[in-house]
């Protein structure tokens, strides 16, 4: 059976009732993994409380942070500070400078464009070493007021075409900040097809691609990770036996 993941949920942090409602609905709709967006300044107790609500609903939870940067230096500074604390690091690209840096940096997991920056001259050009995914949020179609629907569809369609051309992996997410904007995974895939993805591509964009991204990052954040395919299995100590110092993160 296909497992589905929504990498972009934004439940209101101070509202446990709304969080519980979103968690229950996500589970009912068929998701098995969700990434909950936190702010960098959110306290650990708050993060753990929200995680517990989603875990209790029967969902696997990943912690995500959205960095909204306009300049290169600002983006690099945020990445240095936040990378090891979150399983998913997403960049909201508000300028072409930030987009240019984000799509080449291996610490970035996901980039997404806001409605304004997707208007015209954005350049998607993935570096071969980077593992950046382009995220398409359903909330851009359902929650962005002002623009006519055909314009939004055309812009996102153009983004997807450019992403495919540059061999970006595409992730479809809801971007929901309340339960009214959550959608069933296969419905999201159907919207992906409407935007220019093939049927299999669309289903993968909400199932295997986000799940493998989270799994890969969990391995990286786990203790003993050195690099691609290199992991410390144990430190041999003649007297004490095997011991690996654990790393602290929010996962």
């Amino acid at each position: 059976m296909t497992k589905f993941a929504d990498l972009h949920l934004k439940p209101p942090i101070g509202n446990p009732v709304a969080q519980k409602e979103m968690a229950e609905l996500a589970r009912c709709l068929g998701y098995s993994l969700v990434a909950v967006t936190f702010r960098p300044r959110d306290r650990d107790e708050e993060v753990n409380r929200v995680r517990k609500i989603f875990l209790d609903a029967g969902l696997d939870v990943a912690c995500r942070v959205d960095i909204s940067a306009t300049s290169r230096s600002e983006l690099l500074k945020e990445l240095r500070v936040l990378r090891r604390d979150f399983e998913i690091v997403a960049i909201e690209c508000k300028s072409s400078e930030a987009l240019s840096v984000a799509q080449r940096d291996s610490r970035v997991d996901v980039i997404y464009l806001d409605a304004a920056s997707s208007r015209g001259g954005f350049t998607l050009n993935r570096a071969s070493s980077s593992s950046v995914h382009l995220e398409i949020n359903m909330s851009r179609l359902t929650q962005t007021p002002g623009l006519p629907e055909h314009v939004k569809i055309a812009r996102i369609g153009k983004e997807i075409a450019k992403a495919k051309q540059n061999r970006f992996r595409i992730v479809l997410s809801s971007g929901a900040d309340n339960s009214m904007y959550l959608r069933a995974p296969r419905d999201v895939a159907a919207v992906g097809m409407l935007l220019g993805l093939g049927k299999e591509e669309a289903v993968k964009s909400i199932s295997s691609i986000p799940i493998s991204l989270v799994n890969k990052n969990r391995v990286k954040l786990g203790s003993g990770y050195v690099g691609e395919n290199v992991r410390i299995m144990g430190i041999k100590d003649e007297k004490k036996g095997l011991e690996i110092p654990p790393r602290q993160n929010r996962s």
Partner: protein
Amino acid sequence: MKRRGWRYLLVKIVANRALTKKAFSESLAASVEHLFGHVGLAEISPQVVSYDQECSTALVKCSREGVQKLRATLALVTEIENSPAAAFVLRASGTIRGLRQRLLLKNVFTNPDHIDSSLRRSFGAGTYVGVTENNNK
């Protein structure tokens, strides 16, 4: 001549106020027409077969070729009759009987008590029917 194939979708509607079958049906047709035009509407041919007002669930029939377009349309529904609303496809099947059988099968294994009361309030009393498992085919 090849016989036209149909698909049946069980759709849950969440809205701030109670909707009638007519209101949902008109809204659905308008949404399909808005997204795909008259040609798309003819191709998809969405029809509301039945509507349960108490549970806010509808059984919608559409052409087999248009099922993805109908799903996309339902996913993009954000308001019905000028009030906030959302629609979720719970199940899809080739026959109404198949849909009912799956629901009955699910009903045996599901426990309505484990659904949170707030969710049941927004989803209606029949929330537990068929939505506690994630077989969203």
